[in-house]
């Protein structure tokens, strides 16, 4: 164990900004990627049934 206290851990021997900045950027970007993908999934789910219904109805009508 290299840390005697929490403040020492946060300080990172004077390099806290760089070290935590790096880990924060990584965390934010990977989380954003997951959230963006979920949003894309929701958007597709919302749009898909309506579009299908429209195309089906048009096909149905041509059959009639």
């Amino acid at each position: 164990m290299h840390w005697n206290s929490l403040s020492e851990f946060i300080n990172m021997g004077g390099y806290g900004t760089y070290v935590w900045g790096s880990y924060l950027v990584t965390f934010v970007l990977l989380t954003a990627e997951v959230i963006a993908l979920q949003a894309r999934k929701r958007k597709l789910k919302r749009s898909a049934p309506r579009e299908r219904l429209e195309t089906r109805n048009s096909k149905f009508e041509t059959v009639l």
Partner: protein
Amino acid sequence: MSKSKIHWYKYAAPVNFYPLAGKMIPFFTALTIILFAIGLYMSFFVAPVDFQQGHSYRIIFIHVPAAWMGMFLYVLMAIYAGIGWAFNARLASMMATAIAPTGAIFTFISLVTGSLWGKPAWGVFWVWDARMTSTLILMFLYIGFISLQSSIDDTRRADRAGAVLALVGVINVPIIYFSVQWWNTLHQGATLTARSFKMAPSMLSAMFVLMGACWMYSIAIVLARVRLIIKEREREAPWLVETHPFEGEIGIRKSVSEGAQ
């Protein structure tokens, strides 16, 4: 090959790959979480302090895995794009499209963490040296691939155009890798060399665990994205409607079939 009980080509078809990918995602997600937890613990509590750089060197545990992922994923993307182009395999092309955003993000992470490390180590956030410039070009290649594909409406044409760009750009990967040998640069040499490990074993193992975590993350998110791409592109395909109906789809189908009768 013909005696093999597993039909490998079976999973080249979206109809078979789609449910398989769905089953694999939870497994890789769990591995991602476990490996990140172990890797982060090792990088902050097990790996010793560096005698030259103090604690600032701890950026290496994400910087190097992110840089590797950026390069690996590019090669993988180019291979998939090439297969999709040469053999007219649409799933391979979809894989290439699914890999690109994740590769771009990892390349961006390697650039940002690199400059955050550069400031305490070299005194500057950025220099136009060979490795950093070629890594920046790698990110532009990813961005070019993504925007080229999204600018073409016909998906198969978009796949072919992307494949050309990806395959031409692959030349940049060895340039990045060997840049520290070919040019006199501020960037330190390769972290891993065949002859010797310059790092302490606990530092090296922390880096390998996080490397594994990044791989598992990439696999999970690329599979999730490729499933979405399959859904987006083949939404009218009967197999997708029948095996994986969206909410409300069953009701619609029923009413349509009832009406037809």
